[in-house]
């Protein structure tokens, strides 16, 4: 794809420098330890993650509950500063942008979160919720806003009458559509989708995923798509990142990751994600052992306490993420 000369547009075209990048980013939270005056303990929610998302592409992000996916999305959204490392949007560090740059950033980057209940203002009608970004960030007339509202509502499969209702009048799934309508209102360059379809039935899930893809093609939006449904992630993504306890353990183009998973954690995830078949699915834990605490990481490889193929050296040396095939990165001593 050819690159058009950059005018004032901040979002680069596909093929250019990555739209958003994390460079060796770590986020540490301090949590209270036992007792009133107990010392704070350091919880490494995200630990040395580097990744990049080119414009108009999707990065799928999967990993165990509590492994740091939502923390990572907050870092991408500039809602929290990294403890160390850098977050860059269109080549610029998002924490050293001026006022104007920040405003642009917030117009260019939006999000849909895991929880449709707390993310929508209960006192506002759908009309206000969806058009608020338009009012704040665009010079649209009332009439144009109303038109845009109606087209957004029909895009996400809500009836026109929904505009006058309050969030509590909708079911969980319907509320998530409202959140998606709001997130795409300003035609953003990047939308961070933190489990956007977990609350929806499979049919509406498919509808929303189709819609997200259409919008991506039409408006060249990049997505960071966090989900637990591996079939949905496969369908949506160009690149995939697999996280375990705060770190990336595998990072690859989607075909490579599903066709030839290399990390034992990725393999376990894929193995456990079979289509439903009554009577043929066990409740045997796909991984043995307890999930280690991010407050107290194991020595060496962080996955070794649950790894079916761990060896002595895995307890000693922490594996680095390395490229074992073109574009396919894995952090495991035992993969050649």
């Amino acid at each position, binding site marked *: 794809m050819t690159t058009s000369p950059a005018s004032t547009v901040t979002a680069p075209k596909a093929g250019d420098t990555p739209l958003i990048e994390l460079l060796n980013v770590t986020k540490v939270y301090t949590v*209270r330890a*036992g007792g009133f005056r107990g010392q704070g303990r350091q919880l490494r929610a995200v630990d040395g993650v580097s990744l990049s998302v080119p414009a108009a592409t999707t990065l799928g992000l999967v990993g165990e*509950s509590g492994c740091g996916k939502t923390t990572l999305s907050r870092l991408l959204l500039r809602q929290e500063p990294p403890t160390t490392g850098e977050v860059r949007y269109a080549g610029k560090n998002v924490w050293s942008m001026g006022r104007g740059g920040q405003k642009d950033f917030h117009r260019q980057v939006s999000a849909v979160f895991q929880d449709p209940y707390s993310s929508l203002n209960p006192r506002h009608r759908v009309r206000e919720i969806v058009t608020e970004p338009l009012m704040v960030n665009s010079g649209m007339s009332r009439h144009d806003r109303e038109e845009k509202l109606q087209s957004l509502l029909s895009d996400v499969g809500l009836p026109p009458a929904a505009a006058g209702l309050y969030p509590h009048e909708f*079911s969980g799934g319907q509320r998530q559509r409202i959140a998606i309508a709001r997130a795409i209102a300003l035609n953003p360059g990047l939308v961070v989708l933190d*489990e956007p379809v977990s609350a929806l*039935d499979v049919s509406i899930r*498919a509808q929303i995923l189709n819609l997200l893809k259409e919008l991506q093609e039409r408006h060249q939006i990049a997505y960071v798509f966090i989900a637990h449904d591996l079939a949905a992630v496969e369908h949506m993504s160009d690149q995939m990142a697999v996280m375990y306890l705060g770190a990336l353990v595998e990072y690859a183009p989607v075909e490579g990751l599903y066709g030839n998973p290399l990390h034992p954690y990725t393999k*376990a995830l894929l193995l456990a994600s079979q289509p439903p078949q009554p009577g043929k699915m066990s*409740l045997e834990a796909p991984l043995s052992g307890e999930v280690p605490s991010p407050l107290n990481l194991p020595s060496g490889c962080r996955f070794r306490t649950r790894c079916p193929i761990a060896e002595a050296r895995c307890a000693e040396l922490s594996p680095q993420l390395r490229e074992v095939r073109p574009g396919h990165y894995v952090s495991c001593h035992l993969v050649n």
Partner: protein
Amino acid sequence: MPPLLEVKNLQTHFITRSGVARAVDGVTFSLERGQTLGLVGESGSGKSVTCSSIVRLLPKGSGRIVGGEVLFEGRNLLDISENEMRRIRGSQISFVTQDPMTSLNPVYSIGNQMEEPLRYHQGMRNHGQLHAKVVEALTQVGIPSPERRVKDYPHQLSGGQRQRVVTAMAIECQPSLLIADEPTTALDVTVQIQILRLLKDVQKELNLGMILVTHDLSVIARTCDKVAVMYAGRIVEEGPIDEIFARPRHPYTRSLMRAIPQIGRKEDRLYSIPGQPPDVRRLPQGCPFAPRCPDVIDRCTHEAPTEQFFGSNHRARCLRAEEMGAS
């Protein structure tokens, strides 16, 4: 002995400015001790409202149970006092809400909140004992470093951790009926299986009856004995799981199965049921699924389907249910 739970023709309506929403419109099912019922269906079809009606925890304001019975061990829960109901909730019946944040108080630590039902329902007072109980419950649901995490506030936990805390609270008091509304949506498959395993273990131990609401048909396949499929406030099909998976009789169930995403199925567009979900304020005459149904015939648009039975425990609300099983 009466069944553990019998719901008969339950009707719950919401009075809104734009009309009466028949969120639950004549739901009937029963559940035995030790049995697991999966409740699936379209977003907005009334699964959560059915659950909250059973425990009488409808969202404050406009929601009202306008008809039917909820017989728990033979006793109609819709007739008893609020005080009695409160005693039953959290001791005999536990309810895990769809959104864990509605069951967690943001200003109290996790440990504090988990001790509450033990104090209130089990009269446990000893500090050390309470602490030990809570830590054990958190360990069971796979929260790492539980002795430290008890001090945390809900916002310091990840989405899936909060969901597991709420599940842990629900089984603490050893109920005889557990209603869990989407208990595993925020969990990856490995943790999900761990939680389902725990629920099944607790079920065995207590001879617990369970209702699991979920969009994930793998969860149903792994854990349930029977499934009820909801559409527009009604159960449109119910039966044993292998029957429902192998020979779904209702076109909605069949479409739902078709929409299950599968790894390795490279398609440009995912299959979804055409059309929009019905507005329960303005239900059409005839079958509510008719406008979207691939198998619709003329009669469907004006004749409301009644339930048809196939064997003793498989039923479907479709005029063509008989033919559907044949194909």
